């Protein structure tokens, strides 16, 4: 009993209740700061859950990103559901989803009552303009730290995939879904080759 408590607390401080509270509060905070689409929330989650709280490792976070990106629905909600299950089972999933949805629902409720006035406020426009540069920096910072880790193992394979996917995504309007499916296909072919190679004496 004591031992299981200990291993629980070793994974990010406090018991399960404490972790659920932390998960909910962090979901609220992260969601309230996600200006600019699904990839922003994923990078904020990585900083919080991987680097700070150590609830997930980097590989898991990337897998979750892929799953969230290729499933129907909002990426932010999908990623929250995955992290929630991992950190706190069913209650964790529900709390993470609620925490992610609550800030936009509350903010939009307020705004929809006087939206014309809000959109025309010059100060709001200036703040948002400044935030765009900050958001771009946050995303590229995460790319640099994730990218570095990729070149520790399968260097050539990873570099080719990265370069091709980047060029296709940046230069064409190809849907993300096709890129992910192509990567699964490439991974499948490589898995078969590796399996054959391992079976050979």
């Amino acid at each position: 009993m004591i031992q299981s408590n200990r291993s629980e607390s070793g994974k990010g401080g406090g018991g399960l209740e404490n972790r659920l509270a932390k998960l909910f509060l962090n979901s609220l905070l992260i969601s309230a700061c996600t200006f600019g689409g699904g990839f922003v929330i994923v990078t904020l989650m990585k900083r919080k859950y991987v680097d700070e709280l150590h609830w997930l490792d980097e590989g898991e976070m990337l897998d979750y990103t892929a799953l969230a990106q290729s499933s129907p629905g909002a990426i932010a909600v999908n990623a929250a559901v995955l992290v929630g299950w991992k950190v706190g089972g069913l209650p964790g999933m529900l709390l993470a989803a609620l925490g992610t949805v609550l800030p936009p629902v509350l903010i939009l409720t307020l705004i929809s009552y006087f939206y014309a006035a809000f959109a025309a406020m010059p100060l709001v426009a200036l703040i948002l303009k400044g935030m765009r540069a900050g958001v771009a920096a946050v995303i590229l910072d995460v790319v640099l730290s994730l990218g570095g880790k990729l070149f520790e193992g399968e260097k050539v394979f990873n570099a080719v995939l990265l370069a091709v996917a980047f060029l296709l995504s940046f230069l064409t309007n190809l849907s993300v879904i096709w890129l992910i499916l192509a990567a699964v296909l490439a991974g499948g072919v490589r898995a078969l080759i590796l399996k054959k190679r391992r079976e050979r004496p």
Partner: protein
Amino acid sequence: MNLLPQLFWSFLQIGLFSIGGGYAAMPLIQAQVVDAHNWLSLQEFADLVTIAEMTPGPIAVNGATFVGIRVAGIPGAVIATLGCILPSILIVSVLAYVYKRWRNLRTFQDVLSALRPVIVALIAAAGLRLLLAALFPEGISLQGLDPVALLLFLGAMLLLRKWKKSPVLVIFLSGGLGAALYYLTEAFL
């Protein structure tokens, strides 16, 4: 059909068929909200897109709240939001189970490991696109470079990489500092 079930059903479809994030959801929202049900005019829909870009949160959730409130008040907002996240919760929960169950399988890992560089590439492309839009608000040219945005970006990079500051702090700081700098340059230059 009653209004609330109709809202729920419309946003359930939006949640179920928008794969690949906010930009994929936009045409679906328009099809349901403007074309099929006339809940918003085209002008109101354009306002919704602007608001969604200026506020935190997924555009589908923003849209569900906005449309729900205008059509049926607070209950409408709650019902529409639930409809839009329900498919996510169900489908992704199944995926979470599959992932947990098979994660340690060698072949599954080999397949997933090919996804990781692609995901990093997608994040990089999205980040670069955002950066270019911030640095060159009027389109890319030498004269079009926004020096304030460049300054903010370099400062933010420094805070993040060198001093490991939290992203939330960096985003709010660049918003506040940006507003002040833009205001000053507009007033004095």
